[in-house]
């Protein structure tokens, strides 16, 4: 009987656990193995343990790596700026419209990401009324473009990952004990300092989770650069995609993808150190 009890969790876990081990953990480790091969897609690849590929790819694709970091960071900051007042409004001011607003935030994302991004393309196209209007009022120079610019790509990323910022922010603000803010104002704190010293720190785990959930997928994104940008805006995801599926240079693609994974683990680790492990657990729970 006791033996059966001990086997119970294993039996429950087994199917999912095996799936994640075989189709997630092993593939991610295999990236390292594939990256250390030499050869080409037609004649086959041989395991040569050529570690030199790592400095090679990092220097060759330095521009795209830095660009990815820059775009993802800009989009994350923009998301935070747009999402914080929105989440604050939904949590504290929306009253009986709260659920409606939450629904409205996630609803657009039930349309395919590709379809939405193509819609932005339609909207920002050179012949479109947005570009014409902006040229007319002088916001864009004559023959100015919105597509194929850094602005369009960063705006696209911001748009596509906004709910990942809104939802955790909302969740942490909603849980916040409002009596603490009242106590602060009762004790003659100004609205601003009550916000800065009470609301903001208590919303910390939500901000942290939102930043992680936005920054990580943004770092690997290549759809926005592909559809709203040009090769001048390509990010590291475009390179990985192209090397794997078009050029079929698997070691280079695997090495870049492994580098990206390491950058992200370092980022998560660093962020966890910064805010403390407890917040990370709270944020991801």
């Amino acid at each position: 009987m006791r033996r059966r009890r001990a086997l119970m969790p294993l039996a429950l876990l087994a199917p999912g656990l095996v799936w994640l081990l075989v189709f997630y953990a092993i593939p991610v480790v295999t990236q390292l193995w594939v990256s250390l091969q030499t050869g080409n897609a037609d004649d086959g690849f041989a395991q040569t343990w050529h570690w030199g590929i790592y400095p090679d790819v990092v220097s060759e694709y330095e521009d795209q790596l830095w660009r990815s970091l820059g775009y993802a960071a800009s989009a994350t900051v923009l998301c935070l700026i747009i999402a914080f007042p929105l989440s604050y409004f939904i949590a504290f001011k929306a009253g009986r419209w709260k659920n409606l607003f939450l629904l409205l935030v996630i609803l657009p994302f039930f349309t395919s990401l590709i379809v939405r991004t193509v819609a932005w393309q339609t909207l920002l196209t050179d012949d479109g009324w947005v570009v014409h209007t902006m040229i007319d009022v002088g916001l864009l120079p004559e023959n100015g473009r919105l597509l194929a610019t850094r602005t369009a790509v960063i705006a696209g990323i911001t748009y596509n990952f906004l709910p990942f910022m809104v939802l955790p922010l909302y969740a942490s603000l909603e849980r916040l004990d409002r009596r603490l803010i009242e106590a602060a104002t009762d004790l003659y704190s100004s609205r601003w300092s009550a916000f800065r010293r009470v609301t903001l720190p208590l919303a910390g785990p939500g901000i942290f989770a939102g930043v992680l959930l936005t920054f990580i997928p943004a770092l690997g994104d290549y759809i926005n650069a592909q559809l709203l940008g040009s090769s001048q805006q390509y990010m590291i995801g475009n390179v990985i995609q192209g090397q794997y599926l078009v050029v079929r240079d698997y070691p280079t693609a695997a090495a870049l993808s492994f580098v990206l994974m390491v950058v992200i683990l370092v980022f998560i680790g660093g962020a966890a150190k910064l805010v403390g492990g407890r917040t990370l657990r709270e944020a991801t729970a």
Partner: protein
Amino acid sequence: MRTTGDRVRDITIRVWAIAAVIFLFVPIFVVILFSFNDNQGRFNFTWQGFTLRHWEHPFAVEGLGEALTNSLVIAALTTVIAVVFGTLMALALVRHRFRGRGATSALVFLPLATPEVVLGAALLGWFLTISVSTGFVTILIAHVMFTLGFVVVTVRARLEGMDLHIEEAAQDLGAGAITTLRKVTLPMIAPGVASAGLLAFAISIDDFVVTNFNAGQTITFPLFVYGASRQGVPPQVNVLATALLVIVIALMFVVLAFQRRAARADAAVAPEPA
């Protein structure tokens, strides 16, 4: 004691929130509007007049119907597999203490924290290494892999909010482990399982990146749209996207109604709110 400053702040924040929601809906309006566009030629970028012809023949584009069917079948199968496996994992993680519990939680969480391009590339590298050719089955494998974590997180949240004593009471009254699971635990976590299923379905049907890596010759709806985007997306895509959105909204209301009923049932079991 509300000052003018407070009122200005309130109005500013309200305007900001409404503007943000409008921003979120801009491309959706474009998608819906251009499904009625009487476009001439391949491109559907400029407004040329109202028509219903695309709505009358939503599958008039070669390959689109097949792509949509593939997406729906894959999403349905993914949902079933991920919900069953994920719910079992959530039960193990919440109800049992065992060695390796922390490591298991981490393994469930990590795919959610990995960028899609890495998930897709890693899986393709693995399939190439073990000489598995990519296609329908590998798409399904990939979709189950990245939706599993979402199911575990969602069902786990519901399980953790559940009163353990009800299960104990069932067992004290002579119900076996299986009966307790079937008659007590599963009905109580059903709303969590339903939202997990909806989430898995929505993520699967929308996925482009991981699918693009592991699709082989199989075309799904997002892959079709991406492929078409180079030569001009046909308005039929807008029609289907709009129709899908309407269906999802309807499904969401069903789940919501279901959860409301469950909430009332919860309230009946535990009359005192926590």
